[in-house]
């Protein structure tokens, strides 16, 4: 059937896999944005820069301290998350009573500064990061060749997304978060420390970005612009999924990665814009996003 269309199954499945991998990054990044927006009402434009910082932290841990991929997968998100907590405590927390626009401007400025610093010290040519030995190579599935590391990226992102969704939707801590998103004053009046919840949520949201950065390091070269290139698409994903919707961010992330991959097969010229075309259509038909709640 594919041959009739002049498309080999290898090409189709190859692009599907590529789409799924891009979708994995979209999902993890837009999930972090959705979690942050839900509780803090802040559109975190620094998300791409912090994703890039995650990749750089992994690179630095390896080159300066000899710490390898697996410890970095935990350490780099913790470091990025701790940095995020400092940002939240010193700057973002002063903006909660203001319009969204101020948080957006502040985080946009922070993104420029962070990217500028890395560009200054590390240049723009990109630094290589080796795939860990255990995940090098791949498997021939008969119909296509599946690189092990790429399979791991998909599995790791699914696990992280599921874990985050489960924590928010099914646990006591998640109930606090959901309640604080709706009515922080009343949750405080029950004796719950809402500022602490907000701080940890921001830290967790940006730690997700850092985690995605470490996952990306061996695939894309580690370079200061890697986040800026990605974040625009991720914002489109968040808009399509619905601002603040956890499940929407995850599902839309994978879905759009796959759609992008398929477009690359059937109409390559459209692959760069397809997500934005979908965004425009969704905004016209369902402005609150596919999974958004009408406010």
């Amino acid at each position: 059937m594919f041959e009739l269309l002049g498309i080999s199954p290898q090409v189709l499945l190859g692009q599907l896999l590529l789409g799924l991998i891009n979708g994995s990054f979209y999902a993890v990044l837009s999930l972090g944005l959705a979690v942050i927006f839900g509780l803090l009402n802040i559109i975190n434009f620094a998300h791409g820069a912090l994703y890039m910082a995650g990749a750089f932290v992994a690179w630095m841990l390896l080159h300066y301290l000899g710490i390898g991929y697996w410890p970095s997968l935990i350490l780099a998100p913790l470091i990025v998350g701790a940095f995020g907590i400092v940002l939240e405590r010193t700057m973002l927390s002063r903006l909660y009573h203001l319009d969204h626009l101020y948080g957006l401007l502040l985080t946009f400025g922070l993104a420029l500064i962070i990217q500028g610093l890395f560009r200054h010290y590390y240049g723009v040519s990109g630094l290589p990061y080796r795939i860990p030995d255990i995940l090098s190579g791949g498997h021939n599935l008969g119909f296509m060749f599946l690189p092990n590391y790429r399979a791991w990226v998909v599995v790791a992102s699914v696990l992280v997304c599921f874990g985050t969704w489960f924590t928010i939707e099914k646990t006591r801590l998640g109930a606090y978060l959901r309640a604080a998103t709706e009515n922080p004053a009343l949750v405080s009046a029950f004796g719950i420390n809402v500022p602490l919840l907000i701080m940890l949520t921001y830290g967790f949201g940006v730690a997700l970005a850092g985690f995605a950065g470490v996952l990306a390091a061996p695939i894309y070269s580690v370079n200061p612009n890697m986040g800026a290139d990605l974040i625009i698409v991720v914002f489109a994903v968040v808009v399509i999924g619905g601002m603040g919707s956890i499940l929407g961010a995850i599902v839309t992330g994978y879905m759009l990665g796959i759609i992008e991959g398929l477009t690359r097969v059937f109409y390559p010229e459209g692959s760069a814009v397809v997500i934005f075309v979908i965004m425009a259509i969704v905004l016209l038909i369902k402005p609150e996003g596919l999974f958004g709640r009408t406010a």
Partner: protein
Amino acid sequence: MTETATKSALLRVERLHGWYGESHVLHGVDFEVNTGEVVTLLGRNGAGKTSTLLAIMGMLPRREGSVRFGETETIAMQSRHIARLGIAICPEERGIFSSLNVDENLMLPPRIADGGLSVERIFDLFPNLKERRRSQGTKLSGGEQQMLAIARILRTGSRLLLLDEPTEGLAPVIVQHIGRTIQKLKKEGFTIVLVEQNFRFAASVADRHYVVEQGRVIDMIQNADLDANTGKLQAYLGV
């Protein structure tokens, strides 16, 4: 106002002022609630009853004066610390969370002390809630939402309950149920401050009534003396 000062006052509010931004809504509220009492704040719309409860709970943007709970002065405390002392609020708009189911709403307020009601006892008081544990909080009827809003603060071990118009907009049979529940809670030793517009309901559950007008307490009436003061009260409430 009439002096009822005793050593056993659990809540003592003195010269309480409160503001929403520029708007000065409380102008020196004074009243006391003794341990185990049910006391109402009566008054017209906009008199400052709800604001008084919010101020006690630390939920007004700005407040001054004195609010003592037991021996503790709370005027400079944040609402989450006030809650930890053992005060809990059931707000006028009920505050049921739509992204939480009934169970999650019920279990949301953390236990702050021993002596709260068990979940079984709560379902004894409000059997409707038990059947709807998995329902989304805001899918409940108005009466069930009100019961849930009261139920969830009974678990926590808080001894002082601030109930803001728990009968507002509810059918008579549910109002009666809530009235009986408040009487049971009083027997269990809870101390309750009740904001009410419905003074017949207030009369059926309360020990004393404070009349609030223009951000002040202007009178206090013992429930036993209510009949003798009906005319006066009707003038206050404008009914």
